[in-house]
């Protein structure tokens, strides 16, 4: 018994394990792609937000209204425009914007009113929290997947993009960057829209509102969108919305009796569905040069889903021939996540940092979600991670990763 030794594994019998197997197991538990965690020397830490060279908000909402968009609907869609402008409650009867209970009692900094849909007001929001760049995402048009008329959906998508160009990007401030909008309704037409918009200054990505997208994001009907995004070098951003629950999880909408129940569940639910669909239907394999960004579900769910996907991949060989590597490897290589909402993590501040470490800190980017009332100021994230990671990792999470990914 000198060449090998016994190893007891759980309640298993005393199966003998040779030294080469031990080496394999050591390799097996090593977590790839980690930043430098808590053993970082004190001198390598960053202490103050002011020391950061750049803070990027990778989910900076604006609050477009139907009245904003109507003048920007192309003549080609005159009939659609005629209907929309005569609709008494377009948020309800063109879009199906519904909540379980109204969230308007929540906080004064409401999410849906239109009082900050100008460049100056959006810049004021960034300034209030010392944010350098905002990656602009839609507000009302997060609900785009619920528009059940394809012509109107396409007309509104293009109108948003026209309005965005005219009101936010042509103002020459260059601190506001934006994702051009696509809908899931007509992927070939959205590919043309990506080609039309991609060359505009300060367009840095493709916003794909993703709760209510049926079939989910990995289905190859969306390949024209992904192909156009890849060809134009733009990441695809998936943003959920609990407003769309009725279209994708009708049973949950029926029985979630409060806004809270709906909001807590639907954001991670829909992102988990879209991410697992994307991975297991092989989208990153089909588009190896395309990056994907998942927004507004926080970070706690990432290691959970990653572990679960890897486990299934190793056990379900026969039904996953589309994949050439572990799901977690696709995630580390091509999938990014924005941080808001962090959740209430201050009882033990290190827990959030540990979740980011498990998820892979190189793929995590700060987001605020301003002006919505569950926004996270930069300090909320910074204070949780600055004692855990080295300076470079913190800088990456707060802005440098976004700067590189989006070529800011």
């Amino acid at each position, binding site marked *: *018994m000198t*060449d*090998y030794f016994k190893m007891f*594994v*759980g309640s*298993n019998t005393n*199966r*003998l*394990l*040779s030294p*080469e*197997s031990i080496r*394999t*197991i050591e*390799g*097996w538990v090593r977590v790839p792609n980690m930043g430098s965690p808590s053993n970082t020397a004190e001198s390598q830490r960053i202490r103050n937000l002011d020391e950061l060279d750049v803070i990027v908000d990778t989910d900076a909402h604006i609050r477009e209204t139907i009245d904003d968009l109507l003048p920007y609907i192309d003549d080609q869609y005159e009939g659609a425009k005629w209907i929309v402008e005569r609709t008494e409650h377009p948020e309800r009867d063109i879009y199906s914007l519904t909540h379980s209970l109204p969230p308007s009692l929540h906080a004064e900094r409401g999410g849906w009113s239109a009082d900050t849909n100008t460049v100056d007001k959006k810049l004021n929001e960034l300034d209030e929290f010392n944010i350098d760049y905002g990656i602009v995402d839609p507000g009302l048009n997060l609900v785009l997947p619920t528009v059940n008329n394809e012509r109107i959906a396409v007309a509104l998508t293009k109108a948003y993009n026209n309005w965005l160009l005219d009101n936010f990007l042509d103002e020459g401030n260059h601190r506001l960057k934006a994702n051009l909008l696509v809908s899931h309704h007509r992927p070939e037409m959205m590919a043309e829209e990506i080609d039309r918009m991609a060359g505009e200054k300060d367009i840095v990505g493709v916003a794909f509102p993703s709760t209510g997208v049926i079939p989910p994001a990995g289905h190859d009907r969306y390949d024209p969108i992904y192909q156009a995004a890849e060809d134009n070098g733009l990441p695809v951003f998936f943003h959920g919305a609990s407003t769309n629950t009725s279209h994708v999880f009708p049973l949950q909408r029926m029985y979630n009796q409060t806004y809270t129940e709906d909001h807590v569940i639907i954001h991670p639910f829909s992102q988990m569905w879209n991410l697992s669909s994307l991975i297991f239907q092989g989208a990153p394999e*089909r588009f190896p040069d395309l990056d994907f960004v998942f927004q507004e579900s926080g970070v706690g769910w990432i290691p959970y889903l990653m572990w679960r996907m890897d486990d299934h*991949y*190793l*056990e*379900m*060989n*026969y*039904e996953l*021939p*589309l*994949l050439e*590597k*572990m799901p977690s490897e696709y995630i580390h290589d091509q999938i990014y996540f924005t941080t808001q909402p962090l959740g209430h993590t201050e009882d033990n501040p290190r827990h959030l940092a540990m979740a980011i470490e498990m998820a892979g800190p190189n793929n995590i980017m700060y987001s605020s979600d301003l002006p919505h009332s569950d926004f996270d100021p930069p300090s909320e994230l910074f204070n949780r991670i600055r004692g855990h990671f080295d300076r470079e990792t913190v800088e990456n999470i707060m802005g440098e990763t976004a700067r590189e990914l989006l070529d800011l």
Partner: protein
Amino acid sequence: MPSKHKVATTDELTDGSRVITEINGQEIAVFQIDGEYHAIANYCVHQAGPLCEGKLTGETYVEDNGWDWNYDDDEKHITCPWHGWLFDVTNGENIHNSKYKVPTYNVEIENESIFVVR
């Protein structure tokens, strides 16, 4: 110092069959696949399951057209009966991730007898 251990005769081990034995306290399986002999530990590095008591299988794959699924019937992958992890018996590597590896051993044939070197 490695030594040779007889595990079977060549006529006992037909194509696609196996023998599982114990050598110096280590359970080892020898497979015959397409006339070649391969020795591998009867131990899954996932959860210590009896790897070599499972089925030999081929592999599903996608045709170049990106749509059709096909089955490669070169059945050289041992499937752990506990959770279905798959290892190539010719090199001990998990077919999805080579960082998961089961020990393999040299096999020698002498006078129609099969020996494992360990």
